[in-house]
């Protein structure tokens, strides 16, 4: 169920008015989601869902109890409120307790489009049809998922805060596999505005990459010059960003911890070409205005020309350390450069062009050592030309080394969903050296 700002404010206001707690926080979110999957040129599963969820957090004597319900009738909301108060009374006092926020000034984040919000399965089926037709045209099998959504989030506190944010989404991704089942390609995109999704381009790129009859080349494990396409760069950047928790750094449990104590804020840890920032007002990949705990998102860099400039920090840790609370970001922009993908390929004597990566996991968080594999479009570059498909490889790569060895960046573009929670990211293609492939994979 998609609630308007007024509806959400009315519901939250009633709960807060009846609260017997010292303070009360109400969070409501929900919306409508549509999804259509297809495989081997035909539909498999689809769904349309309408969801709403409401959480009441009661603060009593420095303790917080929370109850979430999907029922919005008055009896259910009263029961949830009473139960949240019961829970709070039974908890131990939180030594780092922080009271709810009062009114905040949020920046506008343009992420809602009436055209995208009105999309249903017939439109998604038309997008899937474009991929299926392209696959038939070039002789490859096609698989994919098209989805759309309109979602809202509302936050109200007994201290007077009310925040409401909404977004529409449209998303298409396509995998293509050649008929011999020996090679695959992929392309995908996510947008907040319906008109910005180019299904034609996604279909063409995925199918082009898969339409290879050549036997894939095997490479030996080792260090390679690699060109990572934007979707792969965005995933890697998200891992580096998601490790930027101030508390973990202050406590010595993070790559961003200073030896001997403290966080490495202000230190140059990466190549000066690396900037990762967020901005609610940037139309390319706007972060929402309302951050976790109601703290406003502001335009800021987390990594600025190679220097660690911010770490995210919960309100409790901010209070304890006397620093600014900074909410975790899921939508981010990695700044690009002026090299085109073709320029990069021309500059490589021998290397690998990577379309997409898969199943990353942090092996050693202190060293930001990440493992994962290439997937759906891996190509050998020789003497400035893409010469053959190359079999997939596992990488074991320290992200600090990766982002310290940037040779060139292309223009930043919106990518498919970033790792870890469906955020919107924008990233450039990236040319790096000494990317470590640790073993071969036969996975196609």
């Amino acid at each position: 169920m998609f609630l308007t700002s007024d509806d959400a404010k009315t519901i939250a206001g009633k709960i807060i008015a009846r609260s017997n707690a010292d303070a009360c926080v109400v969070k409501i979110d929900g919306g409508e989601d549509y999804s259509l999957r297809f495989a081997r040129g035909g539909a498999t599963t689809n769904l349309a869902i309408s969801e709403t969820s409401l959480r009441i957090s009661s603060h009593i004597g420095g303790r917080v109890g929370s109850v979430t319900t999907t029922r919005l009738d008055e009896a259910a909301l009263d029961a949830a409120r009473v139960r949240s108060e019961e829970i709070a009374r039974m908890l131990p006092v939180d030594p780092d307790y922080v009271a709810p926020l009062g009114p905040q000034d949020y920046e506008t984040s343009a992420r809602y489009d009436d055209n995208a919000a009105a999309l249903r399965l017939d439109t998604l089926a038309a997008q899937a049809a474009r991929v299926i037709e392209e696959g038939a045209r070039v002789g490859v099998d096609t698989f994919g998922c098209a989805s759309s959504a309109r979602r809202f989030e509302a936050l109200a506190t007994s201290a007077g805060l009310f925040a409401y944010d909404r977004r529409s989404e449209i998303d298409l991704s396509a995998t293509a596999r050649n008929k011999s089942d020996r090679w695959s390609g992929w392309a995908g995109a996510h947008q907040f505005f319906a008109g910005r999704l180019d299904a034609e381009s996604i279909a063409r790129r995925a199918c082009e990459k898969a339409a290879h009859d050549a036997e894939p080349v095997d490479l030996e494990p080792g260090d390679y010059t690699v060109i990572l396409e934007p979707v792969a760069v965005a995933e890697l950047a998200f891992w580096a960003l998601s490790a930027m928790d101030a508390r973990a750094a202050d406590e010595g449990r993070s790559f961003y911890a200073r030896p001997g104590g403290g966080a490495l804020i202000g230190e140059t840890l990466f190549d000066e070409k690396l900037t990762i920032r967020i901005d609610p007002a940037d139309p390319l990949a706007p972060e929402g205005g309302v951050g976790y705990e109601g703290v406003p998102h502001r335009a800021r860099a987390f990594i600025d020309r190679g220097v660690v400039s911010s770490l995210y920090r919960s309100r409790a840790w901010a209070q304890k350390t006397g620093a600014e609370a900074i909410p975790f970001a899921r939508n981010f922009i990695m700044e690009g450069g002026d090299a085109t993908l073709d320029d990069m390929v021309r500059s490589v004597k021998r290397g690998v062009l990577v379309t997409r990566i898969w199943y990353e996991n942090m092996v050693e968080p202190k060293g930001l050592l990440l493992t994962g594999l290439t997937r759906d479009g891996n190509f050998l570059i020789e003497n400035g030309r893409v010469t053959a498909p190359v079999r997939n490889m596992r990488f074991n790569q320290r992200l600090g080394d990766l982002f310290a060895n940037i040779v060139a960046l292309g223009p930043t573009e919106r990518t498919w969903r970033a790792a870890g929670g469906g955020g919107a990211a924008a990233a450039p293609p990236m040319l790096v050296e000494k990317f470590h492939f640790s073993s071969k994979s036969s996975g196609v």
Partner: protein
Amino acid sequence: MAPTFAPLRDAPERADATNASRFALDRTALDRLADLALDGARRGGAAYADIRLGETLREYAQAKDDRLEHFDERSTRGFGLRVLLDGSWGFYGARRLDEASIREGVARALENARAVRPIQGAPIALERLPAHEAEWAMPMGVDPFSVSTSEKSDLLLAICASARDNGADFCSASLSLAREERLFANSFGARIRQTRTRVHPTFTATAVDRAAGRMASRDSLVPARGAGWEYVTDAGLVAEAAEAGAQARAKLTAKPVVSGDYDIIIDPTNLWLTIHETVGHSTELDRVLGWEANFAGTSFVKPHMRGDLRFGSELMTIVADRSQPGALSTIGFDDDGAPASSAEFNIIEKGVLKNFQMALGQAHYIGLSASNGCAYADSPTAFPIQRMPNISLAPNPEKCTLDDLLSGVEKGIYVVGAGSWSIDQQRDNFQFGGQLFYEIKDGRLGELLRDGAYQGRTIPFWNALDGLGDASTYHLDGTFTCGKAEPVQVAPVSHGSPPARFRNVRVLNTTGDE
């Protein structure tokens, strides 16, 4: 293959009458809503329809050091209606349980099926499953949702204190509880009511050497289970936290693993995840057919390999089942209405691939007649897809202890607890970390090692299995959160095994600090 609406009823079943009181939702109201949906689907022209209605209760509490950071209860009610119209699926789900929403759901599910028809390709074809009328409730001692908030928060804080008192600098501990209550009904005439509960207490103890810039952690080895509160209180978490705190501290100064090929013995606390990733996922028929190609991936296993593929050594028998007591995927019927008895089969038998896991509508692709009961929807508002039952490595029928396994290793490594994990999209190349690595020297356990992970390829790895513990060494582990599908659904599943010995496996030092 042609579905019809004629009901096929058998005698009502009651798996566990003593637990029937655990159904909290109004049965009459749910039945009325199910009738309304199925009748509406039939009148709308659907050849088949099914509906899942119910509620999921969750509780999550987390402590960090001396703070209880979160304590949340969550209840989610809703329904999901699936219709088959002219060979296309249509699905609609809502987090509401009322007649108006059901009526809207019927119209929207039919509308969705019509919307998909232009790209349907081959029409969806379903086998006719027997229609059961049944109730099933998971046997359980103390309902964990009845235990007081203060008892739970005290336990979490005690775990953190125990770890920190014994060597850890930091500790976080959490408790996840879930209870699903579902009514399933379909147009074959099935009407199945089920409820089950699961619990997952866990913690991470971390030690830091700031001067050396090094940290080490040790997660709890207590697995998630389908169980009541007695499982949590009997798990010895406070004592384990003390041990974990000391081990995290010891890992800081342990001898680093030297990369190389080793004979390794893998404890069940680690091997469950390897079974899950290499065997569980590779033998899912939807992946084999390509239906997950765009996300979770396909499989190196192909349909024609059933009955022929030498997957592992003769010691390897992998059993699928939905009846194992305490397991996370244990239930009376799957989310297509197939009984647990259909989900009891060998996937691998003495090293040879014997069966795939299937959901409704898949069997005919490989020349079989019916699903083997491997469907699950992670909420009533999710489209049911093929998911794992409990999948386990059968123990050695011959007597074999851990010491027996160790005695056959001159130079090797013993791996305990699950660490980081990764596997390719066809389930071939994998890399698994662990919680604890021990040297094996001349047939005996030696020193604690640090920074290890093993890497391999599925078929060679399982063919390198040459030693297996017997039933006395068997241990059941598992996860709450196996992800699959778009949109992602998470499923609970257990995997049991004895400790197992593998020859010549590649072991890495993950830090390069050798």
